[in-house]
């Protein structure tokens, strides 16, 4: 597979490490959320057959974490963003 890195252009997926569903970036706040909320966030998945937003890490590249929008049936990739930008757009900060 080839991932079109927003900064570096097309790079072989072999250079990346896969984590999973990008929903993992919505980590609850440990000071306010409890076990139930953390459990649902960490363990349960939509696991769609179709479009899937997922986290990839460019370990053999520039060490950027990316959010890749990929179809799990065709493997077609339609969007690649820097995870840091997506996280900020979701209101994550410090």
């Amino acid at each position, binding site marked *: 597979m080839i991932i079109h890195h927003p900064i570096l252009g097309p790079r072989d997926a072999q*250079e990346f490490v896969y984590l999973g569903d990008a929903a993992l970036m919505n980590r609850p706040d440990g000071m306010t959320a409890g076990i139930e909320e953390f459990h649902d966030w960490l363990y349960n998945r939509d696991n769609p057959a179709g479009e899937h937003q997922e986290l990839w890490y460019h370990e053999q590249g520039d060490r*950027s974490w990316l959010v890749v929008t990929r179809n799990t049936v065709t493997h077609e990739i339609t969007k690649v963003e820097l995870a840091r930008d997506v996280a900020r757009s979701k209101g994550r900060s410090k």
Partner: protein
Amino acid sequence: MAELQAMTALGARQAAVAVVGPVTITERFDVALASVAARRGRMAELEGAAKAAGVPLPEAARYTGGTPYSAFWVAPEMWFVEAPHATHELIADQLKAAVGNAASVTEQTDAWVVFDLAAPDLAPLMERLCNVDFPAAPDGFASRTVIEHMGCYLIRHGRGQVRIYGARSSAQSLLHALEVAAAAAW
């Protein structure tokens, strides 16, 4: 300065040189290296300080040469800066003095082994080593890549001039990989 004698990554006192067919592989033991990473929100400040100190901060996937400082991009708002080891063994301190708190600076000199490859045309070798479209890459192209399972930085100085940074601890394995690929390529 100190009484400690340096040892190359290949375990010798002198840098190694290997010739395989048309390619010459030269270990570079005279390169000082440090990482410079902008502190959050202080990129402009860093650019100013770097400019003043003559430290280039090239765009993504690029290398810019200079004297004494050359640099290549390694990550967003992060660069590896090269300088001659003889004059800049303390490159981290020297750069830190220049950029102050606008950036985090870390010595990287001995984390790496450096090989310069020279041949009339290195394309036949590069296509066997790594997944970089070498013929299409411009001079000054700099990228992290993988050579025989080893993470490396590759800098294209010309069609016949390439510098490779590999993990110092794997220097022997990397040199072996370069040599056998060169033997097969020509």
